[in-house]
């Protein structure tokens, strides 16, 4: 569909996944609203999947730490003196006090604020006050911090609460081969915001997991994207769709033409002089790709030769099971992480990371922001697009409320929403004790 030509050297494989036959049954709405279903997820899903826990870039020096909150769990990621990154449950082994507040920082050791037990960066218990007064034995190695499986890929730190989990790369399947050419390890974070939203975490995943909503939710963008011809691929646990940008939708009256916003936004932002551009609609995307590769690449210090024209212009949209949405625009990416509330199925935490590949520049790391969703919240990320997110945010609490209506029967999904069906199948595999692989 988009893959004209052959695979670039070291580039993303061009092959398509076999078509997935996932039936047409309705998706029960209780999966989004029931406390019982959320409990099943807490017992069988979250403790067994690899979770994106942090940015390796935030752990530059020994002692640098960041926390990752997932449901009732808090995990401490710590850069070791030897350079490795290790993860521990963020809890003192004495009386269960949290060791560190949510956030990041630099530690020389981790001291509990309750009775003062102290742990080294590698989790070893270093000091317990009056250790001789514990008749069951002096607190020592056996009371070191409880470790969590931790592996790294793509500049991201991942954790898995299951000590027997398959290795991260096995879990990610095709994703490293697809995504390594983007060099996420060279990306820096421009915006870092958490929005607390009154909806289920899956309501939020779904809202970005298809292009069918664009005409309804983002009708004012149909002059710059093709929401109709959207290839969908379902991999083992994960999925992808490709949303062509800098082209007007077949639903739009100016389809086939270079619309004003394609000219003023896409061509201009890539460094192509919009006034001087004389090409037709089919010439826009190659011109943008050429400018990004030849002008922006050197300016950013990034080598884009592993990415084809489509990858440098379009939105390569991946859902990394269970809770990461990646909108990749070649030189930049929007990453969404959808985290469940510890107990309430009607609440979730939406993490937004705006990433830019600019290895030649040392960009200031923004402080993390936490917001409660309100209708007038517009995040205003660097590079624009905040109104798009605001349109999706507007829907989320209303979808959640509507799903609780006795008049609503369940999700009635079409082919354009196949990834949502796949997402629920993978969840079902975990809830049934499986490992999420559908053999697809």
């Amino acid at each position, binding site marked *: 569909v988009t893959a004209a030509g052959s695979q670039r050297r070291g580039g993303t494989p061009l092959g398509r996944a076999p078509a997935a036959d996932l039936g047409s049954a309705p998706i029960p709405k209780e999966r989004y609203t029931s406390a019982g279903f959320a409990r099943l997820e807490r017992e069988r899903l979250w403790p067994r999947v690899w979770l994106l826990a942090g940015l390796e870039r935030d752990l530059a020096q020994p002692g640098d730490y960041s926390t990752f909150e997932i449901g009732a769990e808090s995990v401490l990621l710590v850069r070791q003196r030897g350079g490795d990154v290790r993860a521990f449950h963020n809890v003192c082994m004495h009386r269960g006090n949290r060791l560190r507040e949510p956030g990041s*920082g*630099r*530690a*020389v050791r981790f*001291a*509990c*604020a309750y009775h003062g037990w102290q742990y080294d960066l590698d989790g070893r218990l270093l000091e317990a006050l009056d250790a001789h007064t514990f008749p069951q034995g002096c607190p020592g190695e056996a009371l070191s911090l409880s470790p969590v499986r931790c592996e790294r890929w793509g500049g991201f730190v991942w954790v898995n609460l299951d000590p027997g989990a398959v290795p991260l790369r096995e879990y990610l399947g095709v994703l490293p081969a697809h995504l390594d050419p983007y060099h996420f390890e060279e990306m820096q974070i421009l915006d870092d915001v958490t929005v607390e939203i009154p909806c289920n975490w899956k309501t939020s995943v779904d809202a970005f997991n298809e292009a069918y909503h664009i005409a309804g939710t983002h009708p004012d963008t149909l002059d710059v994207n093709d929401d109709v011809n959207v290839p969908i691929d379902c991999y083992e646990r994960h999925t992808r769709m490709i949303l062509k940008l800098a082209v007007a939708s077949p639903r739009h009256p100016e389809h086939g033409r270079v619309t004003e916003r394609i000219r003023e936004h896409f061509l201009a932002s890539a460094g192509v002089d919009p006034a001087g551009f004389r090409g037709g609609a089919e010439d826009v995307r190659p011109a943008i790709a050429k400018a990004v590769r030849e002008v922006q690449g050197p300016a950013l210090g990034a080598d884009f030769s592993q990415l084809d024209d489509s990858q440098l212009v379009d939105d390569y949209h991946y859902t990394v099971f269970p809770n990461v949405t990646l909108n990749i625009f070649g030189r930049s990416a929007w990453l969404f992480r959808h985290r469940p509330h510890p107990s309430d199925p009607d609440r979730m935490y939406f993490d937004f990371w705006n990433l830019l590949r600019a290895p030649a520049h040392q960009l200031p790391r923004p402080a993390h922001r936490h917001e409660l969703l309100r209708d007038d919240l517009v995040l205003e990320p660097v590079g624009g697009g905040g109104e798009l997110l605001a349109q999706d945010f507007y829907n989320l609490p209303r979808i959640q409320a509507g799903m609780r209506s006795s008049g609503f029967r369940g999700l009635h999904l079409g082919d354009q929403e196949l990834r949502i069906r796949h997402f629920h199948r993978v969840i079902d595999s975990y809830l049934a004790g499986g490992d999420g692989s559908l053999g697809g």
Partner: protein
Amino acid sequence: MAASGAEAALLVDVSDLPVGHTRRLEAEGRELLLCHTPEGFFAVADRCTHMAFSLSGGRLEGCLLECPLHGARFDVRDGSVRARPAHRPLATFPVRVSGARAEIRLDRSTSA
């Protein structure tokens, strides 16, 4: 670095102290931490008011300095506590910068 006894001031070359970094200083029996923030230079006592641990290993983010032992945070502009478990503010010392030199007044600290 030179301490002037008459005015109890400390002169420090700050040309090699980038924003986001700190430097531990000792003079006249005091332990100080000079912090280079996006808002300028600030000097505070280099002992967390919670357990007297040196703050010099902690991270400076903006104007917030974190204790590397328990994670208490202080605003180095006025020494105020911004995150527990500390309760008492840090002592601060006036800093005047001229070119690459910072002058820290040891005799005019806020009391912790």
